[in-house]
């Protein structure tokens, strides 16, 4: 692991917070590819065979990170992307550019540690190209400060080439959201598959915006985009799921479940399906409302109180 001189303390602090929140001790391991960013500085980098990481910090505070994975590379241990902010206030702007070759197998684990801030704007823009017949998974978990002063914007654009599979999980369920805006826009070529899942737990006056777009441009491409939001207190949540069936035998499914608790919650969902080829097939499911009564009564008939039953159901949905 290359730790930038003078930033050892920040590196240690971020790793400690991560380990405390996840019980995962693998970040320091030399066999694990890792990118650790603190504020507007890349403080730790570790690469593995077949993977190349370059970073650049601009004077205006923008951090640019290029990740390239060679064709036919299999990375058996997840690649860790850890972004944190240890000052009380500020702005963190990150630009990731991924080029993933053909026949690659890799799993990314991203963690965003923003637990010590009062007011922060965290902006992360990512472009990812996945070559042919590759298998890529991306898990993004956020830990925010309980004061609600974090504003996270994460914009991802992707192109998935022929025969490849991509799955993404975005979770912000363990800590307060603050304000979050998640955008995922994915183009799928022939025989490509994508599986997107977002789960967010809104508390107090959190603001949640999710937009997931599947562009099924290749023949026989398929994708699922599923969002689950548990909105409590005065949470304001808006989810947009879009799917475009532009090629023969393209199949897309979008699903949004927003569970509300309390009378001051404001939630909405907007599905958009557009078919441009008569052999494409798109479906959607959406539900907005309180916890399903039959599920509640099923558990209450086993002795749980209504509160316990609701917690049990929500924990499952957000797990």
């Amino acid at each position, binding site marked *: 692991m290359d730790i930038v001189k003078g930033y050892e303390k920040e590196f240690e602090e971020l790793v400690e917070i991560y380990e405390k929140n996840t019980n995962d001790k693998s970040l320091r391991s030399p066999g694990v590819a890792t990118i650790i960013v603190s504020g507007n500085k890349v403080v730790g980098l570790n690469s593995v065979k077949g993977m190349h990481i370059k970073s650049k910090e601009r004077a205006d505070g923008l951090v640019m990170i290029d990740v390239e994975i060679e064709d036919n590379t299999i990375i058996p241990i997840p690649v860790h992307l850890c972004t944190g902010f240890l000052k009380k206030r500020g702005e963190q702007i990150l630009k990731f550019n991924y080029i993933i070759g053909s026949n690659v197998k890799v799993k990314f684990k991203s963690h965003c540690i923003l637990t010590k801030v009062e007011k922060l704007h965290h902006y992360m823009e990512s472009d990812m190209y996945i070559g042919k017949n590759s298998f890529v998974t991306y898990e993004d978990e956020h830990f925010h400060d309980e004061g609600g002063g974090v504003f996270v914007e994460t914009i991802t654009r992707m192109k998935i080439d022929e025969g490849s599979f991509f799955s993404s999980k975005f979770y912000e369920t363990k800590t307060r959201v603050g304000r979050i805006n998640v955008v995922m826009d994915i183009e799928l070529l022939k025989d490509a598959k994508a599986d997107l899942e977002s789960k967010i737990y809104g508390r107090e006056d959190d603001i949640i915006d999710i937009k997931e777009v599947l562009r099924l441009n290749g023949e026989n491409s398929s994708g699922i985009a599923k969002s*689950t939001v548990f909105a409590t207190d005065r949470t304001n949540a808006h989810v947009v799921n879009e799917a475009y069936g532009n090629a023969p035998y393209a199949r897309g499914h979008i699903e949004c479940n927003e569970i509300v608790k309390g009378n001051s919650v404001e939630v909405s969902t907007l599905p958009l399906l557009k078919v441009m080829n008569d052999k494409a097939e798109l479906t959607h499911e959406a539900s907005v409302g309180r916890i399903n009564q*039959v*599920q509640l009564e099923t*558990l*209450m*008939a*086993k*002795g749980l*109180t209504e509160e316990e039953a609701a917690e049990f159901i929500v*924990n499952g949905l957000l797990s």
Partner: protein
Amino acid sequence: MLELRDIKYSKGDNEIIKGINMKFEEGNVYCIIGNNGVGKSTIGYIIMGLSDYRPSQGNIFLDGKDITELSLTERAKSGISLLWQEPARFDGITVENYLKLNRDMKKEEIEETLKLVNLEPSRYMRRYVDKKLSGGERKKVELASCILLKPKYVIMDEPDSGIDIMSLDMIVKVINHFKKMGSAVIVITHRKEIAINCGYSYLICAGKVFLDGESKKIVSYYEKTCDNCGHVNYLEEE
């Protein structure tokens, strides 16, 4: 003993249950039999205390104590349990966690129970209780859940629905398991093969107990009479 005294239940202007009396004693197996739409499941829901199934008249007694006003949770804690005809699905909850239900429970006990309902533990413990389970698999998980609750009174609403014919023997085995545990089993069914294994039956017709007595006799009457009955069941619920 669980006792229903003069229970009536209405939905809007429609009286669905019209004054029924029933008694269930621990360690015995009972059957509530009747054609579709006569109010069999409604009786089960009234006993369990589901929110939309509060009786408009009459009382329910458990060991001499009036439980008519007890909530669903309180009735469950008193030892009443319901095997749902079509159990709900739960995203993100594994079979193991669903069966544990926040309780301390030995893994071996869960595994043994899954085996009892013909589910191989290694294949099912980590699966989710969601829509990826087939109707039959979900029903078997619910059976396992009921067994692990160790109820004093278990209402089994159409226990064989959604389950393959090969598993009918398993249902009978589970009923006998409950009986051995000392539970009162209340089986709601219209299947002769299930009803015949019960000790005492209540034949329901249009919201009333039409006949009750030893199961063989009631089932025989039901087969001969009710199958071809021109009587119109005007209850469209269930």
